[in-house]
């Protein structure tokens, strides 16, 4: 004698949030389950959420949610002076905070028409490439941890700690640096910095080779990554992919080479491009990009010369401490500079830079005040995370973890 379907369904006692749509007579056959992953799941990198409809282990349909670390930086940009907003830019992509600092400083300088001296530009380039290496190390490391390769992560993280030491020498902070100022830098690089940088570059080259040897030809790693999370060139164009993720799918575009700012014209580097657009290719592009960044770093260390680091422009120049401490006018200037800030001429500009993840853009509209009228931050992670659902449709749920790790979603930049 068979029970009715309703009676059997009522016996299934599931915790709230989970729903079963399957047919009770066919429990192990065609069963579809809705699973909620995140926002605190370890595979979801902090604060992302995915709700997936599973058929067995295959994702049939899914949707992603974010906004769990939304900190209203765009609203703050309209309520803080241009100088004060520098600290908020660190917390965008916190894996490579220096790139965000530099891009923000550049975008305000572009609006104001401020030219910075040569040494400042070289130090900024060093900052960018150092941050790029750190970001890629953490991305490939975490991606490997998600798939079970823990020691690979430790190699990368140790080298990252060494890079932190260099960054600490530059600006005193490890992660949230706030190193740049509009029209200059917080301070000059210390004596002998170039030498230490070159020593670090040489050591990192060796470590990258070791890491490459450790993981790239590993059979398990290849089985978990090759052909997983494929996103074709056309899809990448439709979803506005940029950076390493786009280059892994065959889009040969690097804003450092193609829309050069700073002195990227004066250094030589290659742009690694892969063709398949899967997890393995994204990993390979990142590993090769680290090598190219190291090349740029050693060239920068060679070409950097002694000189001033601050712009001559009086509007943005932070008053000298000796003047502030010894003269009345200096003190008033200092007070006015930090309390009211400087005025940025009316206008609007979109400044883009090849950040570690892709195109980072600051769209600033100024109405001639000391605060922006609109401060829009274009983080690449939003566009990459949007593509996760179409990317993993029809794949196994374990492959979703690999795909998510490979596109390197940073919550700070995603939610802003």
């Amino acid at each position, binding site marked *: 004698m068979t029970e009715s379907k309703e009676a059997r369904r009522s016996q299934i006692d599931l915790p709230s*949030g989970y*729903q079963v749509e399957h047919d009770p007579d066919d429990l192990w056959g065609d069963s579809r389950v*809705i699973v*909620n992953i995140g926002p605190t799941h370890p595979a979801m990198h902090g604060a992302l959420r995915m*709700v997936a*409809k599973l058929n067995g282990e295959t994702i049939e*349909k899914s*949707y992603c*949610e*974010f*906004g769990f670390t*939304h900190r*209203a930086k*765009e*609203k*703050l940009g*309209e*309520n803080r002076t241009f100088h004060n907003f520098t600290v908020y830019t660190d917390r965008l992509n916190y894996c490579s905070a220096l790139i965000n600092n530099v891009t923000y400083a*550049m975008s305000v*300088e*572009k*609006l*104001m*028409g*401020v*030219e910075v001296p040569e040494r400042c*530009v070289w130090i900024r380039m060093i900052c960018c490439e150092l941050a790029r290496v750190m970001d890629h190390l953490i991305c490939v490391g975490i991606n490997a941890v998600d798939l079970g390769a823990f020691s690979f992560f430790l190699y990368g993280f140790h080298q990252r700690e060494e890079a932190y030491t260099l960054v600490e020498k530059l600006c005193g902070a490890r992660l949230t640096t706030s190193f740049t100022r509009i029209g200059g830098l917080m301070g000059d690089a210390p004596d002998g910095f170039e030498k230490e940088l070159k020593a670090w570059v040489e050591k990192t080259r060796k470590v990258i080779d070791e890491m490459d040897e450790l993981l790239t030809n590993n059979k398990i790693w290849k089985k978990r990554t090759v052909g997983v999370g494929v996103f074709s060139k056309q899809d990448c*164009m*439709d*979803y*506005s992919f940029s950076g390493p993720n786009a280059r892994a799918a065959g*889009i040969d*575009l690097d804003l450092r080479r*193609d*829309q*050069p*700012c*700073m*002195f990227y014209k004066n250094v030589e580097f290659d742009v690694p491009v892969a063709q398949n657009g899967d997890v393995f290719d994204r990993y390979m592009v990142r590993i090769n990009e680290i090598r190219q960044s190291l090349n740029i770093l050693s060239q920068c260390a060679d070409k950097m010369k002694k000189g001033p680091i601050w712009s001559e*422009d009086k509007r943005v120049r932070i008053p000298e401490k000796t003047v502030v401490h010894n003269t009345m006018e200096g003190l008033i200037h200092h007070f006015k500079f930090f309390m009211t800030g400087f005025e940025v*001429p*009316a*206008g*609007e*500009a*979109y*400044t*883009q830079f090849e950040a570690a993840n892709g*195109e980072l*853009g600051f*769209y600033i*509209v100024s109405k001639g005040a000391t605060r922006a009228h*609109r401060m*829009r931050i*274009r983080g690449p992670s*939003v*566009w990459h995370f*949007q593509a996760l659902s179409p990317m993993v449709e029809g794949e196994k749920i374990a492959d979703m973890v690999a795909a998510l790790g490979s596109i390197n979603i940073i919550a700070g930049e995603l*939610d*802003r």
Partner: protein
Amino acid sequence: MDIRHPIPTNGGEWVTQFGEIWRGQVADLKKTFDGAIEEVKMPQADATDVPIIYVKRDRLVEVLKFLKETDGFEYGFLADITATDESSELRFEVVYQLFSQSKLCRIRVKVRVPEGVSVPSAVSVWKGADWAEREVYDMYGVQFEGHPNLRRILMDERWVGHPLRKDYPIKGYQIFTDPQAVDPERLK
């Protein structure tokens, strides 16, 4: 000095590099979409880094498609969609940042909309416009006509008001006691 005097190290060679291309493109656009282009702002003449093209609302998708697909334009990369809150009669300006990956130049398209009026959605032109438009809706309350799934994205779905409007207070907290629930409707 301001944006009208570009500095080379800020990437400011765009005027000499793309000036001719932009002038040709703007002339072409004006010829093709007679009456749909409200206003054009050019770099150096106005305080902007790239040309801004103000388009009439009802012909926006047409213009975007033209910019994306026509030879000589090829703005295939949608860099960003955002909005600004101008405290005027036409309250919002929806901004489209476009980038041509073959010609390496950028252009900006803007649409002026009053409050409560919707803008045609660009999802049919770029699939990736989906989330960007949802964010504009979430932050400013601008409706997008023809959008497949126009709902809040950064804020909780029970949130009241649109935070980036100029009249929303910066400390306007809204507290919820339970997490946002799973919506099985979206998995159909």
